[in-house]
């Protein structure tokens, strides 16, 4: 927790500084709590990434390669040709400011360079200088800046202060997506060895062991068995998930946090209970044991490298199609990148629900279905026996995670599920949900402890909306479909709205799901007592 109190943190000064934005100056020492530690050399070495070394942003000399300016210039030139998005977004912004107060980091910090438009200008000013005639001739008058060490330091600070949430893109009249700019700017930073450990270590782990947390296969199995025991304690039902089993109908891929730590493990229990209740023929994989993909916060090449495992494993195991758990950035990768990068998945079959026979035509090519699509279809067809009263001790609201909302549009499925499994569901205010949802403040690798102040600031708009429904409707549970959310929203709530817990949607499904052979359920999956009698909705 930061030293600052809630009251101190909300004294946000939106008055821009005297100093013009073109003149960079970041005092990393004074800004501790708002930046992340650099990647450890061993992780960069393992991955074969450039310029491994031990350094700190507070150092004067960042030990860059000698020709770092050239490397970045060439890298930018290459990406301008490869990504129309980048070139167009750098050219067409009219600085209308519609995006300015849409970024949670700007709202929570008041730092004008957290306005998406200025975040992009940090790169755009260098682009003007290096790649446009007007910029070359007019220089500063034309909004152009040379790439100096101070500018580069500023890039490091602000491009690792964007959670790639795409909220700005919703409001921009040209759809300028600062998340895309951040992604490509991070690629450039990676070329000269400017990266953060909270991104690079998971990437290195994932590449080697199969998951971000570095869990090795035997521990993977132990963890799953532990959760199976816990689930039996809570429900009296013993589920039997298989690992690396060839010939299963489905491969089920979840974010690793779901089988590793609270509160994700309860969501995992919910999945297992559901699949067991239906007798689905599925297997988990200790090799493709990560749905998430921190490559998304590194470079497109790294996305591909990590995502490779899912199809590779599906093919090896000979499954028909793939089911994916609740995770935000995981689904951005699966929905918008996987097939393009690692497809075509012609060794799989178009997904069809083994229970209802529904063909998931929206996943006909990628052949990977979101567990919320799967479950919503089950509920619609009346295949689940649900007792929502078992969630009556909870008053639930739903946080749309950024990526599923703005890079996919899975808005109704989780809501439909929630309305079926809980009796007390309340929406947060309109401008803070669905495509306008506010980020948790800790995505894109920023959910580390050293960056805590900025996380809490960035999470303030989200926390605000939760507090609103907490005060108005007594909400005490924040449901979401993202593993990063489950981790960082928990911290966020502890700080801003301690009365509210965080969970996945399938934890609540697991609570409500009635299964043959279960013992009388008087606790939820967390072992907490249920509300008095059934149907005792408004306690």
């Amino acid at each position, binding site marked *: 927790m930061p030293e600052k109190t809630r009251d101190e943190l909300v004294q946000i000064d939106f008055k821009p500084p005297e100093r013009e934005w073109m003149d960079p100056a970041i005092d990393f020492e004074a800004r501790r709590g708002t930046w992340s530690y650099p990647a450890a050399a061993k992780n960069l070495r393992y991955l074969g990434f450039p310029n491994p070394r031990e350094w700190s942003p507070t150092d004067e000399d960042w030990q860059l390669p000698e020709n770092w300016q050239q490397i970045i210039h060439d890298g930018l030139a290459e990406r301008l040709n490869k990504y129309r998005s980048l070139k167009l977004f750098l050219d067409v912004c009219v600085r209308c400011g519609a995006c300015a107060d849409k970024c949670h980091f700007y709202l929570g910090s008041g730092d004008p360079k957290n306005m998406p438009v200025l975040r992009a200008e940090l790169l755009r000013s260098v682009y003007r200088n290096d790649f446009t005639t007007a910029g070359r001739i007019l220089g500063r008058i034309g909004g152009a800046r040379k790439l100096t060490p101070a500018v580069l330091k500023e890039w490091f600070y602000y491009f690792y202060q964007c959670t790639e949430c795409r909220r700005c893109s919703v409001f921009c009249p*040209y759809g*300028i997506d600062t998340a895309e700019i951040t992604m490509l700017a991070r690629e450039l930073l990676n070329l000269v060895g400017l990266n953060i450990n909270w991104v690079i270590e998971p990437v290195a782990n994932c590449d080697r062991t199969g998951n971000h947390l570095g869990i090795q296969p035997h521990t993977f199995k132990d963890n799953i068995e532990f959760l199976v025991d816990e689930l039996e304690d809570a429900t009296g039902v013993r589920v039997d998930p298989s690992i690396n089993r060839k010939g299963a109908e489905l491969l089920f891929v979840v974010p690793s946090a779901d089988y590793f730590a609270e509160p994700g493990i309860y969501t995992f229990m919910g999945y297992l209970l559901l699949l067991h209740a239906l007798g689905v023929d599925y297997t988990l994989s200790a090799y493709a044991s990560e749905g998430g993909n921190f490559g998304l916060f590194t470079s497109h090449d790294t996305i591909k490298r990590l995502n490779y495992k899912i199809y590779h494993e599906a093919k090896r195991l000979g499954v028909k199609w793939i089911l994916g758990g609740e995770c935000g950035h995981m689904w951005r990768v699966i929905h918008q990148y996987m097939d393009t990068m690692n497809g075509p998945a012609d060794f799989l079959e178009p997904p069809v629900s083994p229970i209802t026979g529904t063909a998931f035509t929206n996943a006909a090519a990628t052949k990977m279905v979101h567990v919320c699509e799967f479950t919503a279809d089950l509920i619609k067809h009346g295949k689940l026996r649900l007792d929502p009263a078992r969630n009556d001790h909870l008053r639930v609201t739903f946080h749309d995670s950024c990526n599923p909302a703005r890079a996919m*549009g899975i808005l109704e499925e989780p809501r439909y599920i929630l309305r079926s499994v809980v009796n007390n569901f309340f929406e947060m205010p309109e401008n803070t949900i669905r495509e306008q949802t506010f980020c948790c403040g800790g995505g894109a690798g920023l959910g580390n402890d050293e960056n805590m102040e900025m996380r809490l600031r960035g999470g303030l708009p989200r926390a605000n909306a939760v507090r609103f429904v907490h005060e108005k409707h007594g909400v005490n549970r924040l449901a979401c479909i993202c593993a990063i959310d489950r981790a960082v929203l928990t911290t966020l709530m502890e700080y801003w709205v301690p009365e509210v817990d965080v969970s996945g949607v399938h934890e609540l499904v697991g609570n409500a799901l009635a299964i043959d052979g279960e013992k009388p359920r008087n606790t939820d999956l967390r072992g907490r007592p249920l509300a008095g009698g059934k149907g005792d909705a408004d306690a």
Partner: protein
Amino acid sequence: MRVAWSFLLVVLLAAVAFFGADAGGQALFGVVLPYVAMVVFLVGIAARVLSWARSTVPFRIPTTCGQQRSLPWIKPASLDNPSTGRGAAARVLLEVFAFRSLFRNTRSELRPGGRFTFSPDKWLWAGALAFHYAFLVVFLRHYRFFAEPVPAVVRWIEGLDGFFQVGLPVVYLTDIVLVAALGFLLWRRLEDARLRYLSLHADYFPLALLLGIAVSGVLLRYFVRADVVRVKELAIGLVSLHPAVPQGISPLVFAHIFLVTVLIAYFPFSKLVHMAGVFLSPTRNLANDTRMRRHVNPWNPAIVGHTYAEWEHEFHDKLKASGIPLDEE
């Protein structure tokens, strides 16, 4: 004060043309420079659009602003999250003609106790729409100078525009709207501290230039009264590629024409290229259908991840000990 420099520059440009024409530069300001600007515009815009078109679209990255198409009983947001090419085209047209995304705009305010409120804010949308449509109508009305006889559509637009029949000559509604909307856009840039902070010369200059054009035009129509017959002669000469410079045209006309010339030549090198860019934006013009249909990246790099065999090799003993099935014994 960036804004002051921009206005000063526009006034200077106008003055150069005014006095330059007066001193015998009519052919330069009335014929040569307009032709040069037109060429610069056409080549510049074509080059810009080509350079965008040459950049590939490796990934399909629409920003989804509504429900996806998934299960048959869930209603998709076919315009805000289109799953077909047609839907995406409609989405772009909605951006172009109605500024759809700007319409979502909200205004955030921090209240005591650290509470944010977000209220709809349609001012920018309304001001932007007013400016662009007024500009479009004024632009179209100018065809009366370039065609003989004046096309019926143009007369029709003029009729509508002058509907209120105020004053003589009839006051066009769009003239008022154009100047007012530009004034509003400028005002908000100056009034809002953070907009002022982020605005560049390149943001004030187009507004100043457009205001200069609009104001000089208004002067010509309502106050100085240009000799329309001669101006038309000049204009028709230009478009028929038989340029002629009739005598006796007010120097103010040349100032007006020169500012337009500058706008045309400046266009391809400025943020005004948003006019073309809005059609090409990958977060708006692509269907959200990547799981339905494979999108191909023309330069998809041949990257292979850590393979299963390598992984099994590394963890062989642990796998075996924990009873996880192996490919190789």
